[in-house]
């Protein structure tokens, strides 16, 4: 073998079998973006359970020639593509997450004060306004709906709807949803203070009535009947959510409930995070659309917070016992972060005011409201 042949062989190996010559500027930028999200997750602890796998997914998938998100010669999906195909594309993982969420949720505060369901509906205002705004910017109807749902502040719902209607936007939508959910304590307080007077922030609410175990047990059945009959399209999400809750409340399948809350939830979170992160390849992500999605996502959150507080103000016109408008911001379904923000803001106005349990009602209503909004959109595009 001559020296030239050796050089040619080395050159061929370098060009075809190593990543360095194939690394593009876009991929370098995406790797830097992944570092940013990993930094937010690790150093700032912004939704670390999701941002760590998402960030790492972005990091891995932007290496050239890495067999992760493509298909083999025989058409079989590569590792993360398989997670994506069977988990996200088939819409299994978001539903399993809803199952786990249901098993974790105590509907007591919502059952004790069902009026807060209306706040959950009012807080969907941003979803529909953003839908309209994105249409103006040239998004298709399906894309607009998937961007609009970000404001519902419900990660699995956003992923479920986006995977169904606009899979090409899955990465930016999921990232925007989870990033802004983590930033709820930063986004909401200025709007809450802007929309309430100090007197309104000091309103004390009557302690919630105790809810019996039987009532909690029946709630998932009753809620499923009403919601699924009215919006059948939401059955996969709502059905799993209520099934998880029924397992929790019936008390006879503690092992299953425990698995749904912990082991299963952790596994699907890892798979979901990696799959979502892996959709953010440089050629897809580095365009105008993701930037607009981030802008609209923020606007969406702001309008949803506004909508929730406005709903409480309107309800207070008709109610004898006034509600503290600060609980309106919890109508976005970032559970329990949004409720905690209501509590913190309430205590700033009056250190003796305990709003957390009152805010949990609209918070849970927000989960149902955003899932209903998703169901409405799915039905619309069927």
């Amino acid at each position, binding site marked *: 073998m001559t020296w030239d042949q050796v050089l040619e062989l080395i050159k061929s190996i370098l060009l075809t079998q190593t990543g360095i010559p194939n690394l593009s500027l876009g991929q370098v930028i995406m790797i830097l973006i992944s570092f940013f999200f990993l930094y937010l997750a690790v150093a700032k602890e912004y939704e670390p359970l999701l941002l760590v796998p998402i960030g790492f997914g972005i990091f891995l998938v932007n290496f050239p020639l890495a067999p992760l998100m493509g298909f083999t010669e025989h058409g079989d999906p590569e590792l993360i593509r398989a997670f994506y195909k069977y988990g996200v594309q088939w819409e299994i993982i978001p539903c399993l997450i809803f199952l786990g969420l249901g098993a974790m949720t105590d509907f007591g505060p*919502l*059952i*004790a004060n*069902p*009026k807060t*369901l*209306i706040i*959950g*509906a*009012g807080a*969907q*205002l941003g979803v*529909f306004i953003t*839908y*309209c705004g994105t*249409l*103006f*910017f*040239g*998004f*298709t*109807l*399906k*894309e*607009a709906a998937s961007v609009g749902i970000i404001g519902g502040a419900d990660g699995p719902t956003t992923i479920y709807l986006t995977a*169904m*209607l606009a899979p*090409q936007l899955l990465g930016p939508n999921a990232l925007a949803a989870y990033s802004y959910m983590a930033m709820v304590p*930063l986004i909401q307080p*200025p709007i809450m203070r802007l929309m309430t007077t100090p007197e309104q922030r000091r309103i004390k609410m009557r302690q919630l*009535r105790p809810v*019996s175990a*039987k*009532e909690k047990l*029946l*709630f998932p059945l*009753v*809620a499923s009947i*009403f*919601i699924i009959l*009215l*919006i059948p399209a939401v059955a996969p999400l709502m059905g799993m959510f209520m099934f998880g809750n029924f397992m929790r409340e019936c008390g006879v399948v503690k092992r299953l409930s425990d698995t749904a809350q912990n082991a299963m939830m952790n596994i699907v979170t890892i798979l979901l995070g990696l799959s979502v992160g892996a959709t953010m390849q440089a050629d897809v992500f580095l*365009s*105008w*659309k993701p930037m*607009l999605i981030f*802008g*609209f996502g*923020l*606007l969406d959150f702001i309008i949803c917070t506004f909508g929730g507080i406005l709903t409480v103000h309107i309800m207070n016109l008709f109610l004898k016992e006034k509600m503290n408008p600060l609980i309106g911001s919890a109508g976005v379904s970032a559970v329990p972060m949004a409720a905690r923000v209501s509590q913190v803001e309430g205590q700033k106005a009056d250190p003796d005011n305990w709003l957390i349990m009152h805010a949990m009602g609209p918070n849970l*209503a927000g989960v*149902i*409201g955003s899932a*209903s*909004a998703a169901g*409405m*959109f799915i039905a*619309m*595009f*069927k």
Partner: protein
Amino acid sequence: MTKITHRFLKGTFWTWLIPALMMVALVPRTAVWAAFGEDLEKPKPEFTREGDVITAKLIPRAKSTSVSIHFQVSGGRLIDVEGMEFKEAAHPDVDNKDFKSELFVIKIDKVSPGSEVKVSITSDFFSSSTQYWIFNRMSKEPWMNGDVQNVSLPDLVQKLVISVKDGGSFDSDGVADGRITLAGGPKDSFWGYALGTLFIRFFGIFLVLSILMIGMILSGRVFQMLDKKKAMRAKEIQLQPAAATPDVQPAETVGSELATAICVALHLHFSAHRPTVPSHFFTLEISPWLRQGRERIMNARFIPTNRDNRLQNR
């Protein structure tokens, strides 16, 4: 991160937000649209023929399931229906998003030259407000409303009937030669649909959650009533044995503090009549005074609880 930096970031977050949103709003719509590239939802029809009827099956814009559109002609013979991409008929005044399906080119022959045929287009995908717009590049105004007759049929099916004259303005070849070529497509207002459905669906969520709320309020009242009844029944059961033994006072009428006070008073009262030499607990080593003191202490400990001791002290 220091507090000052944190505050600074918090402050700047809200100061850049508004200009950023304004900038986003000021970006021209067409420029953004151009940046997004191609039309993602291009419907691609597949045609099948069954007798005189040609059926187009396609997934329309903003839908996930396919729909069927049936074409039929009276007064001539339907030769073929073909799909036509919108870009071939693009016009600045016409928005492709108003056309949920692809455009169709309908070819008809065996028409008496110069006479009129009726083209029927039927689908459950159309609504009562669906129009059919005709494209004729030879015409001065290439896009024109087909002035269709929109007929409602059972099972939510709509039938669009267009009258086309051989060699007329709708006929693309423009010649009365016994052959008609009709290009066009069903049109629904994009913004009308988007905003209308937006309004309905937003209030739909209110409706759904309001119904759920009413259901929950009602079931909550039933449960509260049942709980109340249960609590009352439990109270009644508690009270029943108390009525059977009337000589025993109900426990809650005398508190523990009051009972202690009564016992102490009784003790003090009875101890005044105590004999000087007790008949029990006698030992030589202990003086009567000491013994009596011990007994008093011990009895005092039992007073609140032990009735026998109290009697013994008499």
